[in-house]
């Protein structure tokens, strides 16, 4: 009897059970609460570290992201690029192919764009130059997405790790090219490409500096939404993602779908690189993608792969980032504060999904007899 003593009646502290479907508005209520709580925590962190009034800090964040027209446009431009990458990796994620190589695929697209701008920017007329850059960047991204897909399809090589490694191969390729393109010599940086002729730069559209960025990204987003929802290929992606066995049973060529989908995903990432170089930075460095390839994964996941929710989430993240850069300069803080704050917000948003899918009961027991 001795050894049984410790198992004598005691309640478990919490019991967790799966929820039935939660209504949409309540799910969003939970998410909004999580964001609010995270902002309070961030405020506490800010106050603890700097003794600054958090309200002032949040005002500064808002000011930094949307304070002037120019800032608003920059925030919008960066949100669009983040959105574009998130949309690009969506088909791969829907297929449960963990493409964490967007960073490298974007870089490759950017690298090729920069190369064309440098070597052919002044030689080709715009009407040819832009389609060439678009196609070439898409091809470069495609290649970077296709390689791990081939190995995944043929030998089930772990794609998370493969794509992750390819990011750094891409970065080294960029460093390699910078040696040849550096300007001024010895700076180890490419500098603004075609800064005088502006060849290969996006031209304003309808008088808007970033008009083309808006158009291209929105088209990609809408087309991708329709592709996944209404086409046979989109249906194949969904089936492969749910169960490869079912896909085989349905007569789907799983290998082909994996390779095709990753080609599309990589190509779109490449196009994002094109937009980054041609439509925003006009230069190339190993930092051109700037971690967006990773952030986009978080965006896509938090949005549950819904293209329209991604618009919101990518805006929110870029908003925080831009705002934090502002507080950094305004209050003499370090600019990396934005990463810390973003991290905290992400932790809360990731964690809150649990409360949408599960119910937590305190341990209790009704006496029956």
């Amino acid at each position, binding site marked *: 009897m001795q050894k049984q003593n410790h198992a004598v009646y*005691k309640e*478990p502290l919490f019991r967790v059970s799966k929820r039935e479907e939660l209504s949409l508005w309540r799910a969003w209520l939970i998410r909004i609460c999580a964001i609010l709580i995270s902002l309070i925590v961030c405020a506490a962190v800010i106050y603890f570290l700097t003794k600054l009034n958090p309200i002032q800090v949040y005002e500064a964040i808002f000011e930094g992201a949307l304070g002037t027209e120019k800032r608003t446009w920059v925030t919008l431009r960066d949100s669009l690029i983040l959105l574009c990458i998130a949309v690009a990796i969506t088909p791969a994620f829907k297929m449960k192919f963990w493409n964490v190589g967007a960073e490298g695929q974007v870089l490759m697209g950017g690298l090729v764009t920069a190369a064309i701008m440098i070597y052919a920017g002044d030689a080709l007329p715009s009407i040819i130059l832009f389609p060439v850059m678009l196609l070439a960047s898409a091809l470069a991204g495609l290649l970077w997405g296709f390689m791990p897909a081939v190995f995944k399809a043929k030998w089930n090589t772990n794609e998370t790790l493969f794509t992750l490694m390819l990011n750094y191969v891409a970065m080294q390729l960029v460093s390699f090219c910078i040696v040849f393109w550096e300007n001024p010599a010895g700076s180890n940086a490419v500098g603004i490409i075609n800064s005088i002729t502006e060849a290969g730069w996006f031209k304003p559209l309808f008088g808007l500096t970033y008009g083309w960025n808006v158009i291209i990204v929105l088209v990609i987003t809408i087309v991708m939404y329709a592709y996944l929802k209404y086409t046979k290929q989109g249906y194949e992606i969904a089936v492969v993602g749910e*169960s490869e066995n079912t896909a085989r049973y349905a007569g789907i060529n799983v290998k082909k779908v994996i390779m095709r989908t990753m080609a599309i995903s990589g190509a779109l990432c490449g196009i994002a690189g094109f937009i980054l170089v041609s439509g925003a930075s006009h230069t190339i460095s190993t930092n051109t993608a700037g971690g967006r390839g990773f952030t986009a994964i978080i965006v896509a996941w938090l949005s549950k792969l819904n293209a329209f929710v991604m618009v919101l989430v990518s805006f929110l993240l870029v908003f925080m980032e831009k705002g934090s850069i502002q507080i950094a300069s305004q209050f003499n803080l370090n600019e990396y504060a934005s990463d810390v704050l973003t991290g905290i917000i992400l932790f809360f948003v990731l964690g809150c999904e649990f409360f949408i899918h599960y119910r937590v009961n305190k341990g209790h027991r009704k006496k*029956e007899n």
Partner: protein
Amino acid sequence: MGQINAIELKNITKRFGKITASDRVCMNVRRGEILSVLGENGSGKTTLMNIISGIYFPDEGQIFVNGQEVAIRSPKDAYHLGIGMIHQHFKLIDVLSAAENIVLGLPGKLRLNLQEVAEKINALTAKYGFELDPYQKIYEMSVSQKQTVEIVKMLYRGANILILDEPTAVLTPQEADKLFAVLRNMRDDGRAIIIITHKLQEVMALSDRVTVLRKGKYIGTIPTHEATVELLTEMMVGEKVNLDIERPNPVDPQKRLILRNLTCVNKEGATTLDHVSLEAYSGEILGIAGIAGSGQRELLEAIAGLQPIEEGSIEYIAPDANQALEISAMDAVNIGKLGIRLSFVPEDRLGMGLVGSMDMTDNMMIRSYKKGKFFFVDRKKPKNLAEKVIEELQINTPGVDTPVSRLSGGNVQKVLVGREIASSPTVLMVAYPVRGLDIHSSYTIYHLLNEQKKNGVAVICVGEDLDVLIQLCDRILVLSNGKVSGIVDARQTTKDKIGILMMHTVKENQK
């Protein structure tokens, strides 16, 4: 003598969302007895046993072990109380050896002395007459060897209350008899044994008392010697049920499929099908029996064009044609293009036949979505089909937009069979069509198969319950180790004969 209950449950209730899986269930087991817990699939047997073994925690109710109230919050608590559970799906780790699996989670010195463990295991296996190599890796073992590891694992832990969930589902009749002998030995040792089952024959053959559950509720407990098959069925189902399965005689059977020396090799290079030859006729049901993993799945998949073929031929003869068509080199898509209507209900319903997270409409088009040249999918026809299937097979679902994983097991199977029948096939292959279904759903499925048979379809049915196969099929082909060990007339044969055929080549190989 003063009966001490090894385990007693009082008013145990467990809910999953809106479903009450266990509703105020009471039962008890004494030392030195074998208790059967009988119930249909979905009656809450497994939930109840998972509560006893600490996998689930009950919402309400009390559990007494040796007369003392306890809370079993985790499998660890259960094991401290001397409760050992042998799950239907073995809980073993493939890359570890038998000995490593057996000592898993046990307290002791930090450094693990496997040799010592192996010696203790050998002593145990010698005592009960098991055969087990403690150093063998699980992934190299057969199903019955794995079950042996599970049982030895519990004995090693000194479990005196043993729970076995559907222990014979994967065994041949002969292996089952061996297991029963071991269990009786353990009972005579004074251990309490609970067998969860839905097979009446097993209850009658083995247990001392039987507790019946139905739809999560406790129905009653009777001594086995007072029970009859009819009485137990009535308790289980809640009404009198005609247990006979209809078997019309084949009308005008014609050759539909001819397999010659079909050989398949899997990815690991092992031969899964070894020169299998068979003929399937229209208007008959051909049963396929065998120990789990004897090549049944590969056989059906090879015919359906889902499995690469190493050697041999598959010929198809259309109903109005005289000429045989060679289809062994084609994949499923090409077979479909020729207008050959092969339907296939795979054993893994939600992992292969259907996509659980998709709604019925999307599931209806899994095998037909490619139709039409258009780049976009057409969802109108699948939707109509879904509505038709719901109506004709009386599927209980909120609507065509509900993900199929939300449906009950029986309804899921109806969706799958409904879809496969809807294409008016000439050959219908079904694998374990009633696994996990309650009696009513099972009989609906038998009826559907017979309907197809009467329509002149060649039905091929892989089954595990030999009693059912013998009653339902016209001929039964027995597979053993990927080889055909015999084809028998179901009207003439017996369970034992089939059982011997199932073991056939295995024994040969051992010599």
